[in-house]
């Protein structure tokens, strides 16, 4: 984030949920920024706070039980955590848009595709119904849906998952947002469609200059589309680097674990024809309402020392454009 000016910047964001077991620190002091035309990947396993951090940007966390308790989300000189309800509604879907994981259930089954794309247009840009319908048709063409005139009055149940995700992208990009948050946009799709959707997001991003925050658990997706990566674990950012540096030499044992856990076709057998067990990271994520005093990953980490268990690691620069929160210097 040195050369470019940040479009959207999270600073020390903290989102908590009040549960019966105690306060869950789902996002615990996370900072990241994304610049114009850049794609930032946010990776981590389920429950690490990556989705919550992205939902917090637009204040879409259900309150109660969730609450943004600290930090800020800076966008165009404003702190979105503090602006009025009306202002944040004007930002949502207009200047910052979201795509969700489940295309099968993210569209209103009772409304035509055309109407659903038109809605943010009439609402945010004040277009007339006819103008909005024309623009909706253009958007459908842009996301490469064939026979746009026909689909304008089609319904979501007539579409496949991939087509619905294209429609979601069309809705999200209709108002030409500055930032697009894609929360696991390809997780529910099969692999060939995944590639198409990622390619589409990439193309549209280049065309429109949108900043993209790609939230995913899939390092393959990250390698494909991201410029820069933030790795999260137990509500915290543990590593940040350019995508090349991260894959070349991960500095945090957790990131390393994630990478060795990717199944590889060339390594599934031992050479004797017998299949090898997939690699895993031993143990589980500690409960977020009861985090250890030191590093949250220490119990699962092969490099952990006493210092790791007592003292929280500092998020520090390990090399140019590469930061990590780990006391240990991992062998290259």
């Amino acid at each position, binding site marked *: 984030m040195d050369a470019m000016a940040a479009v959207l910047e999270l600073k020390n964001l903290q989102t908590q949920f009040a549960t019966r077991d105690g306060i869950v620190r789902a996002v615990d002091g996370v900072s990241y920024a994304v610049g114009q035309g850049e794609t930032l990947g946010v990776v981590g396993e389920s429950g690490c706070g990556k989705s919550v951090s992205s939902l917090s940007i*637009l204040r*879409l966390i259900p309150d109660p039980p969730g609450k943004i308790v600290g930090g800020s989300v800076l966008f165009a000189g404003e702190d979105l955590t503090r602006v009025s309800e009306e202002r*944040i*509604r*004007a*930002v*949502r*879907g*207009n200047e910052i*848009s*979201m795509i*969700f994981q*489940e295309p099968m*259930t*993210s*569209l*209103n*089954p*009772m*409304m*035509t595709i*055309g109407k659903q794309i038109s*809605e*943010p247009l009439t*609402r*945010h840009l004040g277009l007339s*119904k*006819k103008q909005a*319908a024309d623009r909706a048709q253009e958007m459908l063409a842009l996301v490469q849906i064939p026979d746009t*005139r*026909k*689909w*304008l*009055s*089609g*319904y979501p*149940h*007539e579409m496949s998952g991939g087509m619905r995700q294209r429609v*979601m992208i069309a*809705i999200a990009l209709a108002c030409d947002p500055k930032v697009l948050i894609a929360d696991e946009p390809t997780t529910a799709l099969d692999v060939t469609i995944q590639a198409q959707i990622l390619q589409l997001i990439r193309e549209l991003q280049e065309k429109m200059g949108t900043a993209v925050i790609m939230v995913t658990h899939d390092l393959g997706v990250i390698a494909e589309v991201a410029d820069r990566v933030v790795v999260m674990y137990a509500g915290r950012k543990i590593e940040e680097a350019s995508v090349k540096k991260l894959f070349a030499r991960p500095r945090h044992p957790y990131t390393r674990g994630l990478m060795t856990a990717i199944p590889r076709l060339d390594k599934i057998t031992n050479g004797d024809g017998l299949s090898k067990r997939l690699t895993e990271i031993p143990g589980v994520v500690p409960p977020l309402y009861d985090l250890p005093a030191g590093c949250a990953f220490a119990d699962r980490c092969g490099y952990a020392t006493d210092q790791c268990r007592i003292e929280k690691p500092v998020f520090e620069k390990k090399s140019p454009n590469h930061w990590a929160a780990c006391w240990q210097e991992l062998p290259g």
Partner: protein
Amino acid sequence: MSDLTRSDRPFEEKYKSSWSLAAESFRRFLILPLNQISFAITALLLFVALFAPWIAPFPFEQVNPSNGLDPPSWQHLMGTDQAGRDVFSRVLYGTQTSLLIGVVTVVCGMILGVFIGAVSGYFGGWVDEIVMRVVEVFMSVPGIILALALVSVLGPSLPSIILALSIRRITQFARVVRGSVLSVKSQDYITACHALGMNNLRIVFGHVLPNCLSPIIVLASVLLGNVILTESTLSFLGMGIQEPTPSWGTMIAKGNEFLTFAPWISLFPGGFLFLTMIAFNLLGDGVRDHLDPRGGSVL
């Protein structure tokens, strides 16, 4: 559904007037034979209700004690009652009262009940707590007792009967709608609506309620017959439509004592009530399936 699937429809729709769209939609509704039947019966009932004074051969209150309890004949198509009044004419006039009470009560109950249920379910929290406790208070009193108490205070006139019967419907609609709103509002597409910057009003009325349509329509068509019958119970207890004004309910109730030797007095209004309920239930089902873009087959 029709033989036209949604995607083959003419696609100039976005430029069409809402009137031609409605006409087109109605034409598609009438493709199904069952919809034709239910629509025809409903239209016939409305026609009878509107034009009863012109169709009926006798005034509904004309008594003729000398030929009381006459069986159906060419002169009296449905026979006469104990006072010698023409049952056919009274059934036709009764259509007016019964349909009016049924439809107005259900519509009132629906409008208020849907609104209350939607607000309660969508906003939740203390609003929901208070509204649902109030609804439960009303539900805990048997419907007929509540209506009786209200009518005895207000006096047995048509407006007060409708009011008395509506209150119960409001609570029934409110509960059903609240339930479906609760399930719909947690759907992904509602979260997506929030993420697109829509306000709560738009989300509730534009996105949540259209997805709660099925239970609302089903409840409305069931309650319609229910209300017409409850009115007859009120009449039976002397708090409903007052003689000599006919309603199906009062006619069925009054004919009760002659059932063994002059069954036509109860039978014909009963038949009309039966027909009405069938028609409205079929119509309700048809409308629900018609409004569901998936063609209703998924339910």
